[in-house]
């Protein structure tokens, strides 16, 4: 049956082509912004806004793993990421200012290493979807975001 052979060939191709390498760390995360932390994304509190006409920033809650630069109060922080539907390397546009990173997508439980700015309103004047708006605490603006291997 030729279908067997074809299946075997495709399986081999899949195996070969899947041999990628994990992303390397970059320097931006250690130099940009005023604060640098490694933190675990606690949850994704709701659907991300559709960026039809405007782009929004979306506030996430993080639990601090370690603080590398600057000072952070408490062990939970709120970080606004611009246009979270996009990979960080593709999110930057004419409105966002400099931002980037290796992070491809946001998943609850992942650990991110981030370069941050604060307060948020000084760095982003557009729409902010903040599901935690009743909770007090500094809102940070994420400048650079990388996924940390656990």
């Amino acid at each position, binding site marked *: 049956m030729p279908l067997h052979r074809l299946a075997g060939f495709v399986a081999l191709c899949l195996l070969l*082509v899947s041999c*990628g390498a994990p992303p*390397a760390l970059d320097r931006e995360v250690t130099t940009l912004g005023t604060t640098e932390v490694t933190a675990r994304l606690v949850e994704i509190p709701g659907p991300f806004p559709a960026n039809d*006409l405007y782009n*929004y920033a979306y506030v996430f809650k993080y639990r601090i793993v370690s603080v590398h630069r600057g000072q952070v109060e408490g062990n939970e922080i709120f970080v606004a990421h611009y246009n979270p539907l996009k990979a960080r390397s593709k999110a930057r546009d004419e409105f966002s200012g400099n931002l980037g990173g290796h992070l*491809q*997508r946001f*998943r609850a439980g992942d650990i991110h290493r981030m370069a941050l700015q604060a307060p948020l309103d000084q760095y982003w004047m557009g*729409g*902010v979807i903040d599901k935690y708006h009743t909770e007090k605490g500094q809102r940070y603006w994420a400048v650079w975001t990388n996924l940390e291997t656990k």
Partner: protein
Amino acid sequence: MPLSYRPWLIGFFLAVIYSLPLSQVAVEASHGEWPQALDVFRQTPTAANLRSFERDTEHASAAVAFVRPWVQSLRFELFRDPGEKTTLGSGGWLFYKPDVQYLVEPCRLDSVPENSPVRAIVRFRDQLASRSIGLLVIPMPAKPSVYPDRLAARSLPGGSLGWTHTQELLELLGRAGVETVDLRDSLVLWRGQSAGYLKRDTHWSAAAARKAAELVAARILASDPGIVGSTEYLTRPVSIDRRGDLVRMLEAPSLERTLPAEPVECDQVYAKRTGELYTDDPHSPVLVLGDSYLRMYQTDEPNAAGFIAHLARELRTSLTSIVNDGGASTLVRRQLARSPDLLAGKRLVIWEFVERDIRFGAEGWQDVPLPAVQASSPASGGKLR
């Protein structure tokens, strides 16, 4: 019946369904990334995670990113189909689909009390009144309200859409004692005076923004002449070219190149004494909250030529403003709640939001408590009289 077409058809089918994931893995590998498809094994299989994985897979697809602009261009060229987000009117005018939906579809203004625009606006008015600050509400007519004839195939009685949800909201707010300005009829009138909306943008022209500012200023001064300041502003003409936001929503770069930017004549506002362009003042007695209609020509190119600058010119005083693109229903009030000092010394808040936000506003119409003012006590302001 020859047999040879069968393996060919099977081979073609398999080649198509296998080539896309294989090429995707190859693209990701070339960027030094793990295959995104394997993410499905890295997370708990909850419904939310699976939806998110599915959406991410499609968004990350290099094939989709490559093919989509071509298909959009083809659809536009062949069928004049501008895609899922925009509607094409007569004469090549583009409209934002949710603007049309807002007008055409039912909208129960008080169906969900905790998300009712009337309730949220009245609550905000009361919060401000307790600080002796007046409120003036301006629901901004979206483009289809001003240009219905460019969308409707049949003639409209009196050239107007008649009673819309915005008219209903204005009536309900009027009954609740909230001060409002209805710009629709004026904007319909001004479009005949070269002060309408842009052809391929959701927003108004600079001339319309200026006329609206003059109308609103006249209304404020008629009610509260004491609000007028002493700064004299002058204007100077500036021309800009604006590439419409609706063109970008066609998601076809090749089309964007064929649709030229629109020339817009603006009047830039500057202070007579210093010659400097208009800038906001956080200590102004007037705070303006709004969305991208207020951003247009103001912080966008050419600067200081939008509604806010012209309103300041008419009131002879610089203003405080919070502009939140697409977020004038709730987000702009949250932003104000994060900076309550801005309310210090205010006697009037002007709140503009595009009418589609009555139904589709980001985060709806939530109640946003305003924290106590920490700075100096309010100036001798009061309710808009």
